[in-house]
């Protein structure tokens, strides 16, 4: 009996002693770019020769595009190829992880390609070098001319696997291409790959074009052009080249933008000097007036769930940003800071609204939460505006103009991008001067 009691009571105490595991909370990390090695893709020697480009160089070119994409994010640090410890022909083998770790790489991309029967087949593998295992492996088959897109898709897949958010490399940017002197600008609608390649001009330049906006669900662009000296909203199908005027309004229509489902266009419509916000169903062509106020309401943008609209209005005296339900009720002013606020754009993630702010003659691009709190100004310059979100809501693209003298000399307009941390600002190369960029959604979903 005594023994039982003894053991029982002893057990009790030993139980109490069992919580010995030391725990340490790690609540911070670094945001240093992740070192990644992109090995040139191995070109299968059996590949067919194609006249447009050098097949044997294709593997290297693809890896270069992937590297450039990664570098532009500011989140990755592609390592120099001279330091690589294994040749590209490791594509079908497991890499020697220890060796790659020596050059401080944390991830490795290997791959191979083959051109056969006029089809390009690309395979790639992403390796986690610290864990010594494969993270993702995919293969694509396409026409050889699409090789740049393959590189972008590979970049997207790797980006997604390493950061947890979708990529934005297999995308295009529509913008207004500008040439000629400042007072006689020729403005054409243009479109290019996100990295500045494959530029195409979609209009001839005999009419002014402004504010192209991508439909997030397909490759339709809406933009503003002049028709009999009146600004009108147009729709353009990039694939077919067919364009049409949206509706037949007595006054001028401007600042068009698609709804998140792509079925409506929301825009401003001005009549007798007063502009309000209207939406139009693209199928039924039914127009609905959303705001009804004697002030100037313009630049509408839907929230990604389509339930709210943000816009700017001068109803308080100065131009400020407002949010309302998509039926026009519950209008609420969200900016209260000093200066003017305009061109609000809702992030595709839904959490932020990007805007342009003008204060004391300087222009800022900033972001804030959708209730107006947490305003952060990302970049300041002489003149910049029209932010447009990357499809994953991480990067903003906008344009910046330089100061010119009275004769218009020294004037230029360029596209720039900045990520929402504000640390990674880059200029996008375009063939001509450029303004009013709009970022498409991912081409391959």
């Amino acid at each position, binding site marked *: 009996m005594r023994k039982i*009691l003894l053991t029982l009571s002893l057990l009790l105490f030993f139980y109490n002693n069992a919580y010995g595991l*030391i725990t340490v909370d*790690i609540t911070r990390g670094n945001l240093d770019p992740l070192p990644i090695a992109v090995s040139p893709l191995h070109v299968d020697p059996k590949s067919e020769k194609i006249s447009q480009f050098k097949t044997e160089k294709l593997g290297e070119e693809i890896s270069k595009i992937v590297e450039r994409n990664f570098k532009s994010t500011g989140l990755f640090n592609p390592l120099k190829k001279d330091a690589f410890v294994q040749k590209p022909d490791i594509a079908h083998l497991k890499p020697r992880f220890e060796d790659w770790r020596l050059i401080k790489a944390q991830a490795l991309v290997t791959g191979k390609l083959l051109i056969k029967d006029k089809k390009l087949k690309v395979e790639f593998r992403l390796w986690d070098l610290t864990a010594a295992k494969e993270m993702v492996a995919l293969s694509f088959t396409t026409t050889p001319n699409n090789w740049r897109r393959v590189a972008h898709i590979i970049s997207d897949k790797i980006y997604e696997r390493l950061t947890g958010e979708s990529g934005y490399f297999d995308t295009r940017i529509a913008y207004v291409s500008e040439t000629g002197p400042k007072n006689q600008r020729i403005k054409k609608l243009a479109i290019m790959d996100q990295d500045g390649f494959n530029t195409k001009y979609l209009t001839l330049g005999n009419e002014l074009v402004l504010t192209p906006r991508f439909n997030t669900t397909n490759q339709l662009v809406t933009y503003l052009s002049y028709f009999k000296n009146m600004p009108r909203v147009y729709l353009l199908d990039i694939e077919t080249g067919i364009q049409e005027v949206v509706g037949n309004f007595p006054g001028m229509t401007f600042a068009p933008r698609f709804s998140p489902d792509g079925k409506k266009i929301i825009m401003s419509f001005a009549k007798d000097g007063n502009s309000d916000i209207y939406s139009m169903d693209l199928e039924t062509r039914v127009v609905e007036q959303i705001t009804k106020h004697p002030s100037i309401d313009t630049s509408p943008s839907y929230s990604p769930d389509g339930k709210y609209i943000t816009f700017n209005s001068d109803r308080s005296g100065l131009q400020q940003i407002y949010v309302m339900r998509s039926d026009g009720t519950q209008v609420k002013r969200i900016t209260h800071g000093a200066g003017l606020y305009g061109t609000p754009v809702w992030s595709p993630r839904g959490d932020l609204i990007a805007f342009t702010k003008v204060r004391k003659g300087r222009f800022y691009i900033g972001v804030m939460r959708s209730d107006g709190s947490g305003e952060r100004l990302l970049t300041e310059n002489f003149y910049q505006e029209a932010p447009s979100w990357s499809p994953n809501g991480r990067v903003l693209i906008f344009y910046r103009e330089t100061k010119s003298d009275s004769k218009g000399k020294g004037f230029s307009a360029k596209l720039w991008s900045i990520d929402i941390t504000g640390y990674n600002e880059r200029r996008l190369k375009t063939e001509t001067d450029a303004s009013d960029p709009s970022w498409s959604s991912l081409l391959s979903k």
Partner: protein
Amino acid sequence: MSRGLLYSFLFHTLVIYLTMLTLPFMMREPIDLPPIVSVELIEIKDKTYIPFAPKARKIIEKVKEEKKRVVSEQALPAAKAKEKPDRIPMPEDKKETKELIKKKQNPEEIKPQIRQASEFEKEELFDTNEIAALIDKAKEEQAETQRKKDELTQSSVKNSFAQGLSLSEEDALRAQIFGCWSVPLGLPYDKDLLVRIKLKLKPDGRILKSEILDHARMNVPGQSFYKILAESALRAVRICQPLKVPPTGYERWKELQLNFDPTEMLKG
């Protein structure tokens, strides 16, 4: 009949006794929570002294000597050094009492409880003094082994928490992992982002085995971010190795749990 009654009585007193022993344990936990914070606060003050004891003392002395060499009149460092032993007992005393309450490993702390229990039982016409004594003995034995362990593992006399790392040791480890952890940026702010990793370490701080404790969450649909987060945490630990663990006391930290949670950082 009377024997049955006796057994029943014995059993019931045992149950009551056990309840009395365990209940405070259970009840204390929520009450204990706020004091843990205050203990930490004291330790932070303490921290400047404790960590410097084994290693830094040498360095401090070196510096002192150097300063002496340079300026002979400078008595300041020496005065500081004198102050030290006076200061230390203050927070340490406090700490020790708190530790006792928390860990219940000291016989002195438990005794009153047991005595209470035995008095209570005396009234019930049953002598459990013997049991109490036995328990006391067991308790003493355990405390002794604990003390032995302490002697074995802790070169620093000041470290009164036998288990767990001191704040400075923890800080060193934490700072090291902060540097190795590349936080994936595409994480949703409003989801539970806690990744718990259990490590088995070698004496040199290298990793013998690592295990993600909520492994099942890795493959839950719609939680793909969790897998990415967990992988990044594992990468951090692997890149960091050998981990900066204390040079002594392998038994204490041969198993470690790291809780990675970037919520604060992402929101901030």
